[in-house]
């Protein structure tokens, strides 16, 4: 039996577990100090400095950060329909390896998720796989066609956490208005893929110096800014809760900052690639860098960092978008946009925000756990006594080099290949169970050891 399997078995068999010596970072509880966690059958029974109780299993977390389980509000699992790119099994497994205990999956599958039966299918498959919780985002309009609203109340009852036509915007402003008004009736979150298609259509990369040099059709930052401006005004008009997906531009950040200052109920996310990469990457013509919205200019990257710093941007979500090798191994104009991110998100974020930009770890935990829970209402987001442990444990200093070959995701369209990062997930605990573990020290008591033999 290998070491990890042994560790898992000892965790399963232990009546009591002591997680010792980690820096507990839980912004919701205002906590950032070294404390121990005492678990009984996977449930949190004690949080305190230096717990001296006996336990069947002690896990040594010296030097580690222990946070409430991370959640990703924007993931494409590709099932049903594109199982050659990713499945619920592989996508949720990648989430667990990446430190996530929850993901919200987007409805732009084939067919799109717009009925109760499809929501039930997703939840059943996710439960069977058991890698992490899956919270389906239902299509906002039937077949994501932007015409007729989906049966939102029913979808919500079946488990949809939000509605969105992600992959495309709701192009018609009146439909968007009705959607927001109707969603407000049921306090349903609306996630907008903010893109003015008449400005972006045919574009391959950000419009700017690099699109000029490379002769590639450009997508102006204004296509995002204009669309976000429309949607926040409609959120103001309707009072509905609006969440702006994948903000990539200075314009976008500025519009959201203004909206928030006016008290409009809007929240927003950005993705790890917008804090770490720019449109200059496209000079290699490598389709791995094609994504929508596109990688933007350095000034946009700086604005996104500032947006995260001042809270204009609430959360970081991967927009994990797997594609097959065949689909991506084409000329840029033919290759589909999208990049995967679940297995690199934490590493990239800790490297670029914490180590390079001086963000506190608590700011990062807020963006990955606290705020996603508050925005989505999916529960979790903090470490609570009496609840099943839901934890992300990471080593903020561990160095590693990104190798997509080693990913559990089926896809390899990762823009961070060969990048050296500091910060790596060491263990993910979901519902009191270990869903991912890597290289931690597990010390079973003699009693437990004898049971395990």
């Amino acid at each position, binding site marked *: 039996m290998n070491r990890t399997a042994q560790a898992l078995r000892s965790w399963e068999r232990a009546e009591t577990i002591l997680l010792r010596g980690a820096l507990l970072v839980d912004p919701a509880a205002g906590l950032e100090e070294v404390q121990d966690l005492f678990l009984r059958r996977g449930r949190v029974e004690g949080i305190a400095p230096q717990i001296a109780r006996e336990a069947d299993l002690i896990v040594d977390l010296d030097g580690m950060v222990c946070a409430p389980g991370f959640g990703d509000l924007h993931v494409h699992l590709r099932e049903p329909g594109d199982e050659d790119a990713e499945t619920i099994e592989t996508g949720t497994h990648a989430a667990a390896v990446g430190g996530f205990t929850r993901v919200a999956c987007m409805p732009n599958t084939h067919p799109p998720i717009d009925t109760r039966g499809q929501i039930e299918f997703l939840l059943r498959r996710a439960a069977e796989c058991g890698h992490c919780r899956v919270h389906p985002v239902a299509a906002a309009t039937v077949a994501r066609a932007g015409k007729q609203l989906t049966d939102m109340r029913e979808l919500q009852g079946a488990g949809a956490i939000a509605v969105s036509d992600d992959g495309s915007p709701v192009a018609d402003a009146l439909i968007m208005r009705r959607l927001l008004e109707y969603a407000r009736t049921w306090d349903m979150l609306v996630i907008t893929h903010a893109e003015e298609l008449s400005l972006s259509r045919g574009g391959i990369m950000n*419009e*700017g*110096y690099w*699109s*000029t*040099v*490379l*002769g*590639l*059709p*450009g997508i102006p930052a204004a296509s995002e800014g204009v669309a976000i401006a429309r949607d926040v005004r409609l959120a103001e008009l309707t009072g509905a809760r609006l969440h702006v997906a994948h903000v990539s531009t200075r314009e976008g950040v500025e519009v959201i900052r203004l909206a928030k200052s006016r008290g409009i109920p809007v929240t927003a996310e950005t993705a790890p690639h917008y804090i770490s990469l720019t449109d200059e990457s496209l000079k*290699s*013509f490598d389709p791995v860098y094609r994504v929508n919205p596109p990688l933007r200019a350095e000034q946009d990257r700086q604005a996104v960092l500032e947006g995260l710093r001042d809270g204009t941007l609430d959360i970081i979500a991967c927009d994990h978008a797997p594609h097959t090798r*065949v689909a991506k*191994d*084409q*000329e*840029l*104009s*033919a290759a589909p946009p999208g990049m995967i991110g679940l297995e690199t998100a934490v590493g990239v974020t800790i490297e670029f925000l914490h180590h390079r930009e001086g963000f506190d770890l608590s700011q990062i935990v807020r963006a990955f756990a606290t705020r996603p829970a508050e925005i989505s209402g999916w529960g979790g987001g903090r470490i609570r006594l009496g609840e099943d442990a839901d934890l992300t444990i990471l080593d903020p200093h561990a160095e590693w080099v990104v190798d997509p070959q080693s990913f559990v995701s089926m896809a390899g369209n990762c823009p961070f290949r060969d990048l050296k990062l500091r910060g790596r997930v060491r263990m993910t605990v979901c519902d009191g169970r270990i869903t991912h573990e890597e290289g931690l020290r597990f010390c079973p008591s003699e009693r437990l050891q004898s049971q395990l033999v």
Partner: protein
Amino acid sequence: MAIKHLLGLQELNAEEILTILDTARTFREVLERPIKKVPALRGVTICNAFFEPSTRTRVSFELAEKRLSADMVNFSASNSSVTKGETLRDTIQNIEAMKLDIVVVRHSSAGVPTYLAKHLAARIVNAGDGQHEHPTQALLDLYTIREKKGRIAGLKVAIVGDIAHSRVARSDIWGLTKLGAEVTVVAPRTLVPLEIERMGVKVATSLEEGIRGADVINVLRLQLERQAGGFLPSLREYRMTFGLEPGGLGPATPDVLIMHPGPINRGVEIHPDLADGPHSVILEQVTNGVAIRMAVLYLVSGGTPPEPMVEGNVLMTAHPAGR
């Protein structure tokens, strides 16, 4: 100096560009002989892979290859297997299996030559990729200017027309600025791409301003579909505002050269009298194009550039190919 591929002028330095121009001069002399053929690329196999229709550039390359005694095959894919779902990857693997030494490629998608260079052992020559680069066209423009004016450095060059969608403009800008020319692009704002000033050029939105003091005016072809794309109100208005007319050369230098990469829309971007007039070097560009392409193919195959000042017979012997 070794040029492995010719993907664009952005990645060449001034010395490399001048080497190509010097080598082309040697070949240009060959083209004036009664027997216009040298054995320089005997035994070298070249594939002209044209994924986008082109007559002029392809014929120019074919001629250059024949003059160099290369073995040449054509692969025209615009209406064949590629549009029927064959991926570029399949095409490439086929090309690779045929053991070709040099692939001359034209494709409607920017970056395809770069992609080929990454995946093939063969040397790649870009014959135009999307709106990215068309390096042999720019090289023949540079050659023509240098022959006519004796230099490039310090000259004022105006490039007039659809800069935004032009691979010729991009390659010209890199080549001219690297060799020290002062470049102004002249077009309505709809046809000027963002931040082009960072490529080292000035932008003028008046023809009169743009060609003031110009030693060279390079007129670009206006794709007639730009009107439908909303870039222009009408061809009529374009002709009236940016079309080069016989009475309009006043602000330029008296011996200004008029160039055009072809094919010309006579009466749209340039008046026929100017296209065929004494300032025009348009047909010389075509002849020089063959010499430039001979030089490029010769150099990427591993050929030795001529010694400066010595019109040597290095080109008269066959040499091992690049592979």
